[in-house]
């Protein structure tokens, strides 16, 4: 069995522009910064839409569904005491060119397939809700 992630979660600072993202999971919903002018999801968050340059931006809920684009099983002890864990890039279904670096949980490495559907689950660490992903259909 692999771990859900490293033994120690190195956490983000909840700076004003990203606090919404890192705390979004408190109600179980993933939110991304969204351009109200052109509909583009902006990730990582920025002050302006890089597609249309509008500043009319706000967090918007997404389904939390995505697909595994690629992954690796980390064995190196970057963070001492960690068991192997799965790192992945997951694309967001609403806009697949948005990818989140994340951990895959409730799955063994041999069962991971690039292209497999996954959905978000959150792991709370202090005041941060980390978006992790689990196979679609898992309980």
């Amino acid at each position, binding site marked *: 069995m692999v771990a859900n*992630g*490293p033994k*120690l*979660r*190195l*956490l*983000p*600072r*909840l*700076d004003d522009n*990203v606090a919404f993202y890192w705390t979004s999971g408190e109600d179980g919903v993933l939110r991304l910064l969204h351009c109200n002018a052109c509909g583009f999801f902006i*990730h*990582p968050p920025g002050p302006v839409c890089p597609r249309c340059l509008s500043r009319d931006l706000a967090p918007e809920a997404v389904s939390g569904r995505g697909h595994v*684009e*690629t*992954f*690796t*099983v*980390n*064995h*190196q002890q*970057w*963070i001492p005491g*960690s068991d192997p*864990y799965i*790192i*992945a*890039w997951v694309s967001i279904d609403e806009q697949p*060119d*948005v*990818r*989140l*670096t*994340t*951990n895959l949980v409730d799955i063994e*490495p041999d069962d991971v397939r*690039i*292209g497999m559907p996954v959905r978000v689950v959150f792991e709370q*660490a*202090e*005041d*941060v809700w*980390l978006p*992790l992903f689990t196979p679609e259909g898992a309980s």
Partner: protein
Amino acid sequence: MSPTPVEEPLERRAVISGIGQSAVGRRLGRSDLDLTVEAALAAIADAGLSRDDIDGLSTYPGMGAGTPGFGGPSSPEVQDALGLSLNWHDGGGEGPAQMRAVMAAALAVAAGLARHVLVYRTVTEGTAQGTGGRPGIGGSGGGRGGAPRFGSFMQWSLPFGAVSAANWIAMVGQRRMHEFGLTREQLGQIALNGRRNAALNPKAIYTDPLSLDDYLAARIITTPLCLFDCDAPCDGSTAVVVSHRDTAGDLDHPAVHINALGTALRGRPSWDQFDDMTSMAARDAAASMWERTELTPADVDTAQLYDGFSVLAIVWLEALGFCARGESGPFIEGGGAIARDGVLPLNTAGGQLSGGRLHGFGLIHEACVQLRGEGGERQVVRPAGRLPEVAAVANGGGPIAGTMLLTRGVG
């Protein structure tokens, strides 16, 4: 979109007139400034110049950058240590990878800001890491638990234990296995080729024979990468002198001409957001280089391609057009094509995997050595006894990439 073409790319006004390298080793226990002075004086002498001829100075990544042992001395430290009087100076870590310092020097020479620019890159990562392994991870601004917190781009990967470029590049490799059928047996040829060549490089870090079985049995770092897919931290300094081509006639060896620079970054500057997960910035840098030259991949006699991780070298093989997109696995299979007597001699001093992590500049140095015919036992000789005339050098990986085409001048 490409910039407006110029009649002659201005980088062609520049040559690499001299090269120098300090001692290189796993842990030399010498200061970065000491090593840099050794390399710099060797490069200046090699160019047939004196310290007083040097009027420009450039380095990557400059003051205070990165983890211990990574940055080397700053340009002010080196200027002062060598007593240089400068018309132009530069140091920085952003741009087309490590070779940005050489590119900046070439452009300064072309613009007439300087005539002879000393360019260096120094690492003491071997000594800095000591025997205790890699350094810890810094952060700032405690959270509720008092532990450091992270901002900037690292916040998107650190919480998930994606701590190292090894993790990110492993995902590029895994994606290549999925899209192109790359195998570990194929990927291993980058490490095996480097080790074979390192055996003929007296300064190389690892020279013991390495077999495919050894490679496949090695400790996994982050799948699909094993220990031998990751470069070897070391101590060493590499320096080159970039001069105006008008001075090339004074040299007692062939000048190495800069034919074209590849500097583009057309995709997003991000590991996880870049549109093509199998190539990234190498694709753009390589495309922009070929847009600036009449030469083609078929003209290249040797390639010195960044192998901080093995996957990066195969990304560059495709990006530079030595094989088609997705075809690097079959291209390197068995290792014949990239051997010194193959169609594309690759990383002939052992690359960074076995030669040591001189961080891009070891590859630049070796390209010059080969073009000048000074490779000794490891000298590449092309069919009909011809010495290499064109070398491609590439630095960087992921969203960071720069590449250069170098040619041998008369002399």
